[in-house]
């Protein structure tokens, strides 16, 4: 069964086609990396999958269900989670509360003004589990804006996963990190449960090829190549698009 | 929540200091002065008129030598911005903080409604209106008196009949500011004019403080004999500007406020179009009675930089203050016993004001002489209101038959 299926999707901004008949299939449990130079349409693809951007044409299926007309909230409730290139956290809230909200957001109900205690305890337990999964247990009491860049990125991953996400979109999880932090974040992704499908945009080729089961290369809004690491590495178009930069690594 | 208590305590402390400070000031006053609070306007469009109101009070105090029957008069002035909220805040301060026994003011209709309403909560204080001329303002408020000059409908007494009989006008369109005083000024004219046999096919109401009247002008019917304008200072000027810019040439009749000092002394020339226009008011610049002449003389002497003639503000505040002082003198300044003696004296008083005798009716509302006027050129290019006719004993009931004026009442299409 496919976890995510994007078929023949076109997105236009004004007159410009940001995505042109793009298709992408990701099976359940797969680690899929999206590559491409700046402006290729990678982040637009993520915005599209989450529902922040609506396509001019094409269909998006999540676990077989057509979600093209579903709102962001509805898609998230169906198990979708994402991070952003610049970490987006709830800056003035405590790290712990960031996670509690992440857990709650997915499991609903939408408005619990006075929540039952057991459920509250359950939420906290799941929040801390997510926190410990990214080794942020020590900073639970801090405000999110006080975190270092790397910590914020980890927090975001934890938030995307919290509450039982089944498909997560990670937008450049390693960008702006030190070598040590990169290692740490790779380990976090490696350690994710195989029941979770992970789609990653990544510029760092080492990390990309390390984690990828399959890759898709975007260029100027089109799919240039798609397949397992060896095939993508070998594809002539890809070499051309990148002008040989870094692909040999 | 840690800081909340500290914030509140800090505030309470500041408050305490200010409260004790004012108490000290209070106990420092000596003797048994009569404390009188005055409310007039010192902000916004009517600030110039409001300042004249304070002048009228000062003239009255000076005239009685600053004391009545041995009691020094202590005047406490507060300025407003011509709105109810500010008038209310200021009158509360005068009554509850400064402990005045008598309030003179305020100066405009909306303020008058708010202050009369407040008077119900302060039965021990006597309120004497400034020149606030809302209709029925003194009704049901046994501690509210209004000598000068009754309500806005009374201010135009005589004008409707004069328009019909002397000017020969049969059909009139009206344009008025869309608020209580505008209704009163239109209502007063319309009720008298209708009674005389005239017709008012169209009444236009425009928002108070409207800037551009260009699109109102085409709405004025061209088949009437005259247009009656009841617009405040700046509104009147804006209306006339728009009217003449479109080449209009109707005959105008103007309400009191349309040709008052603030319009006649505005910096511009549009008001020259008002020369020869009939109007009515409780006073007229060229009044030929000795009391008026000496009042004008005193005003010009004290306030050379004031208006060319004392405005309705100066005259009205002066008259109300002098009526209060005269009644106080009759009871030897005795304000004890819930001011009963003082109020009885006010009720029975007939005061010879600069504009003629003035007293109050059973509802404590002024009965006075009104004047039909005509706007004329005065010396040095100024404009003034010349007397055409006097209308004695103008009473509120004459106009209030059938209830307070509204945009649709009275009417005779």
């Amino acid at each position, binding site marked *: 069964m496919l976890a995510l299926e994007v078929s023949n999707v076109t997105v236009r901004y004004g007159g410009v086609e940001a995505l042109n008949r793009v298709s992408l299939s990701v099976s359940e449990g797969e680690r899929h990396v999206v590559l491409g130079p700046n402006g290729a349409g990678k982040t637009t693809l993520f915005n599209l999958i989450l529902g922040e951007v609506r396509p001019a044409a094409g269909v998006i299926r999540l676990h077989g269900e057509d979600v093209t007309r579903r709102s962001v909230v509805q898609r998230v409730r169906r198990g979708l989670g994402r991070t952003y290139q610049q970490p987006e956290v709830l800056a003035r809230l405590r790290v712990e509360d960031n996670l509690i909200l992440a857990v709650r957001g997915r499991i609903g109900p939408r408005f619990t003004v006075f929540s039952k205690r057991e459920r509250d305890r359950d939420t906290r337990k799941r929040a801390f589990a997510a926190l410990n999964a990214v080794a942020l247990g020590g900073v639970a009491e801090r405000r999110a804006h006080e975190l270092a860049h790397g910590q914020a990125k980890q927090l975001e991953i934890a938030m995307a996963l919290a509450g039982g996400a089944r498909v997560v979109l990670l937008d450049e999880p390693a960008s702006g990190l030190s070598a040590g932090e990169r290692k740490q974040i790779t380990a976090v992704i490696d350690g994710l449960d195989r029941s979770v499908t992970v789609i990653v945009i990544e510029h760092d080729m080492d990390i990309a090829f390390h984690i990828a089961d399959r890759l898709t290369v975007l260029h100027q809004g089109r799919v240039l190549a798609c397949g397992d690491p060896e095939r993508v590495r070998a594809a002539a178009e890809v070499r051309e698009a990148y002008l040989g930069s870094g692909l040999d690594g | 929540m840690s800081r909340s208590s500290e914030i509140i305590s800090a505030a309470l402390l500041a408050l305490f200091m200010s409260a004790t400070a004012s108490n000290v000031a209070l106990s420092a006053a000596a003797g048994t002065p009569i404390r009188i609070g005055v409310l007039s*306007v010192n*902000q*916004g*469009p*009517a*600030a*110039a*008129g*409001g*300042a004249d109101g304070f002048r009228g009070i000062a003239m009255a105090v000076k005239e009685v030598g600053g004391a009545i029957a041995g009691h020094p008069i202590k005047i406490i002035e507060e300025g407003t911005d011509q709105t109810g909220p500010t008038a209310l805040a200021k009158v509360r301060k005068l009554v509850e903080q400064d402990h005045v026994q008598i309030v003179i003011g305020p100066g405009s209709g909306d303020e008058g409604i708010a202050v009369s309403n407040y008077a119900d909560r302060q039965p021990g204080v006597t309120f004497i209106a400034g020149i606030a001329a809302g209709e029925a303002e003194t009704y049901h408020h046994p501690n509210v008196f209004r000598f000068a000059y009754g309500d806005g409908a009374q201010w135009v007494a005589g004008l409707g009949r004069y328009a019909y009989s002397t000017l020969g006008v049969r059909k009139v369109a009206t344009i008025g500011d*869309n608020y209580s005083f505008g209704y009163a000024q239109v209502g007063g004219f319309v009720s008298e004019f209708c009674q005389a046999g005239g017709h008012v096919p169209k009444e*236009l*109401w*425009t*928002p108070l*403080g*409207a*800037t*551009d*009247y*260009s*699109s*109102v*002008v*085409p*709405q004025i019917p061209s088949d009437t004999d005259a247009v009656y304008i009841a617009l405040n*200072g*700046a509104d009147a*000027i*804006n209306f006339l*500007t*728009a009217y003449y*810019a*479109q*080449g209009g040439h109707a005959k105008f009749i103007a309400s009191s406020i349309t040709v008052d000092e*603030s*319009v006649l*002394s*505005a*910096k*511009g*020339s*549009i008001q020259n179009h008002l020369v020869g226009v009939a109007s009515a008011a409780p006073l007229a610049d060229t009044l030929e009675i000795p009391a008026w002449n000496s009042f004008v003389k005193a005003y010009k002497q004290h306030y050379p930089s004031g208006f060319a003639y004392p405005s309705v503000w100066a005259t009205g505040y002066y008259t109300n203050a002098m009526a209060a002082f005269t009644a106080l003198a009759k009871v030897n300044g005795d304000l004890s016993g819930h001011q009963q003696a003082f109020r009885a004296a006010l009720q029975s008083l007939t005061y010879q004001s600069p504009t003629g005798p003035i007293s109050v009716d059973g509802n404590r509302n002024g009965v006075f002489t009104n004047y039909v006027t005509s706007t004329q050129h005065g010396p040095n290019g100024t404009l003034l209101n010349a007397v055409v006719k006097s209308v004695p004993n103008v009473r509120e009931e004459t106009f209030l038959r059938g209830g307070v004026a509204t*945009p649709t009442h009275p009417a005779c299409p």
Partner: protein
Amino acid sequence: MEEFALTTLNGVAMAALYFLVAAGFSLIFGVMRIVNMAHGSLFLLGGYLGWSVAALTHSWLLAIVAAGAATAALGLMLQQGLLRHYQGQELTEALITIAVSIVIADLLVATYGGLSYQIPAPVPLGHSIRIPGTALRYSSYSLALIGVALATGLALWLFLERTIWGVVLRAGIDDRQMVAVLGLNIQRIFALVFAIGAGLAGMAGVLDGTLLSLVPGVDSSYLVAALAAVIVGGMGSLEGSAVGALVVGMATEFGIGYFPSYAEALTFAVMAVVLVVRPTGLLGKAR
């Protein structure tokens, strides 16, 4: 029919005045994200200054130049002296301009009192003229006012579209970071924009003082009108201010002409409808 035509013409004339106020307000908002609540005060101040200059020199042209220059200078002082230190703190900036507007309004009452002031129109524009081809007579000054607004709008448009300053400014409206990254002196641009906006307000004050009259209170009327115009038209765009001013001008004139007691409410009803249909204003870009 004649009534309708006149009201429409009045709407355009009023829109001309509103445009001059709204354009500066919108420009300042677009470039700096400052809601200049003192814009109305600068307008009234310009009007009064214009009256004083006209009374002294008997020159209407000098009055408008002096008022524009003085309010531009004051705007520059306001921006450099107070607002510059709080860039990006939108609420703080709005609050500062509110405080300044309270002070200016009060000092104007102290100086000029509450009387109405009218500035005599320049002699050739003091009369009404027949509109060619119709039986309508219309104020030549109002027609000139429409011309002034068109010329100003055109000048602003040329400035924004055809000069290097304008290119930088538009870039600044779209993306302020980018301008900074390009190494352009954004501070000088901010100062210039504030001066232009304030100067326009001051000149509009003189134009209003000639068309109608100046009196305490018109400062907030015109601020509110400018606010409505930029919300309707779309914030931060010159074309938006023009369209917004036209809508508000028409609503004002048709309101007072046909539903006078609801005149002001009508303007805002129109605004609410626009907000529902297009939250970013008629010509506003999606945010």
